[in-house]
């Protein structure tokens, strides 16, 4: 029977693909096997598992010839669950894709990330990035992240579908609810949302309602643990969320965020609050018909805030080849590499380097740039403004809420309790 732990560990190893070194590293406390051999091959662990971004990054990495580089693409949800294990293993990947902001700071505070401050000074590839990006990539006074692109969130819809249904783009909350009502009357699911295998999507509406009602500053403080999830402010947010529940496609509970794009494209669903990355899953013939609008304003006195999550790369603190890792990061951050990636990935992401020519980007992307420029405040996303662990408390609370909106007070109390546990540890 002593073999039970073996088999458990055995398949965990298979799942994580961390290999024996990582496995042993996870078993013995304080082990830090410093294999002296500086490996020359760099590993780039990528979460970009959707076809177009994956192909784009493959091409970009092929263009890097200075060090031999292996691109290792992992399905995003597996990557998300395994990222701490990757970083913590004895022989971690050298460079990894992930997100800027609190989530990167959280990993940095655990000692997982390589200090890349020298890329941000002098002639460094990130030296000319905006101060806001630098602030976003900084933890404890040093830079630990290399942002390469960012995107916007919006309520996506098909122009021709809105015409068929005879509805206009809503500007206010009441107009938005009215549109939902009209669509439901026509037998269309007003709002699509894939919360099955990607429950974090449910946090998008939470974020936006909180931004529209309580503002960006309160939102950031809430996610940092300075306010309570069962306080009066969050209850107001949930009152608004509750108005939406009857309009959300119930089948979305079984869908992933990608699956939930299909009803939108086939006009079985009307609207979808999602990031611009979703456009890469839309068929080419529907792409020109796709448009988006800003999440409607609820309280005009609250400064308009938008989510603009920033993607990029960080390097492992335990990399065997820090110089090579930094060199790869510098290459990935360069304007030509950014431009190549954005063009090939067809995702409508925006470059962080001002040297990339954006004039040839599609009208949809131009509209996204304009919307972000008009916003008074920028946030990232629930997990990026807090941590991947706090996100799981939101997943539990919000998917439960979508099933049982009547239990909202109990759910919020549970949420606060589990959030406190996460933030306290």
């Amino acid at each position: 029977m002593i073999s039970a732990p073996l088999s458990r560990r055995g398949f965990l190893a298979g799942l994580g693909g961390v290999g024996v070194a990582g496995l042993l590293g996870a078993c013995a406390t304080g082990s830090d096997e410093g294999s002296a051999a500086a490996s020359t091959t760099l590993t780039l662990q990528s979460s970009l598992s959707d076809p177009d971004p994956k192909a784009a990054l493959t091409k970009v990495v092929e263009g890097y010839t200075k060090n031999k580089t292996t691109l290792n693409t992992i399905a995003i949800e597996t990557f998300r669950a395994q990222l701490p294990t990757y970083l913590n293993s004895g022989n971690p990947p050298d460079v990894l894709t992930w997100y800027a902001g609190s989530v990167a700071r959280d990993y940095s505070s655990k000692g997982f990330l390589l200090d890349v401050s020298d890329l941000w000074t002098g002639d460094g590839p990130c030296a000319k990035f905006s101060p806001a990006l630098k602030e976003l990539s900084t933890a404890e006074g040093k830079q630990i992240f290399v942002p390469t692109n960012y995107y916007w969130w919006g309520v996506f819809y098909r122009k021709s579908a809105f015409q068929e249904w005879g509805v206009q783009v809503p500007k206010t909350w009441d107009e938005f609810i009215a549109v939902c009502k009209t669509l439901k009357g026509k037998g269309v699911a007003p709002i699509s949302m894939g919360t099955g295998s990607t429950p974090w999507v449910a946090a998008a509406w939470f974020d936006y309602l909180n931004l529209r009602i309580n503002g960006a500053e309160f939102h950031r403080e809430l996610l940092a643990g300075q306010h309570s999830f069962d306080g009066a402010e969050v209850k107001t947010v949930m009152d608004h969320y509750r108005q939406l529940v009857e309009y959300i496609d119930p089948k979305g509970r079984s869908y992933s965020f990608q699956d939930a794009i299909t009803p939108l494209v086939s006009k079985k669903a009307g609207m979808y609050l999602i990031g611009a990355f979703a456009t890469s899953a839309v068929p080419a013939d529907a792409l020109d018909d796709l448009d988006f609008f800003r999440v409607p304003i609820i309280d005009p006195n609250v400064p308009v805030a938008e989510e603009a999550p920033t993607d990029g790369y960080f390097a492992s603190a335990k990399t065997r080849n820090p110089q090579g890792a930094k060199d790869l990061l510098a290459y990935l951050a360069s304007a030509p590499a950014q431009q190549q990636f954005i063009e090939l990935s067809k995702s409508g992401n925006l470059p962080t380097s001002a040297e990339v020519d954006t004039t040839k980007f599609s009208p949809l992307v131009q509209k996204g740039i304009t919307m972000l420029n008009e916003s008074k405040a920028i946030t990232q996303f629930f997990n990026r403004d807090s941590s991947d662990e706090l996100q799981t408390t939101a997943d539990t609370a919000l998917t439960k809420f979508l099933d049982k909106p009547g239990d909202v007070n109990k759910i919020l109390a549970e949420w606060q309790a589990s959030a406190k546990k996460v933030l306290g540890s």
Partner: protein
Amino acid sequence: MTAVATRPASPGRVRRRRNIPKVVWVFLAVPAVVELAMVFWPALNSFYLSFTEWNGLGAAKPVGLDNFKELASDEVFRGALQNNVIWAIGFGGLSVLGGLALALALNRPRRGVGLYRSAIYLPMVFSLAVTGLFWRVQYQPDGTINTLLGAVGLESLEKQWLADPDTALYAVLVAAVWRQVGYVMVLYLAGLKGTDPLLDDASAVDGATAWQRFRFVTWPQLRGVNTVVFAVTVIDSLRTFDIVWAMTHGGPYHSSELLSTYMFQQGFTFLNLGYASAIAVVIFALALIFIITYLVRATKEEAV
């Protein structure tokens, strides 16, 4: 071997032990060291870690029994424990009943029986993760199962099987049993081959009904196989992880969480390695209790 060699009355055999070439000890030592390093050492580490708080970096902080106290008040853990009980009973019961019934039905040689046996065994060759993905497609809102229910006029039974907290665990259970049943069937088929057909024929001549023949003639002869099936089933049900992870990730909101998935989430997503080790210790203890109880009972029965 050692038991034989230490018998004092046979000096010839003692000499034979001395003559064992040294290289044999080397061959024995290598797997012993591997076993110690890869199985016992990590397992012992798990026990040690369960009394600490550790995020994988730096030194582990001993916290005594805090992890276990926290487990006792952790509702997700209690839900997972309850689910594990449901899982062990459902998975064990259904796969044993199903496997035994199929084995009995397919035991007698007749035309095409090999085809049926292979077809029922076939799911076993898929990995649990593949099984999970396959069934996830069937359970989709517009998937095969809902379509079939709709086609026979049972629309009212259509559900979002994996997204509904009331059905998620059972939906995964069905998929796991679907795969396991062929394996149990093969074990019982082998067992049935070892029974004496003459006994069966004799009791039939004496006028025993089919049920009586099974219960009083065949079943007692399957005791050896039952031990194997029981052990395999308990171990398989306690270590179930991949199919739940592939199908629901323990969701929606922990409703299909098992101890193993919760342990994985705590250990490898949140890096609460001490807490996760405490869950691992609980799993280990449960497995041990089951197996020891059963072995004690089995040996007692054999002694009688």
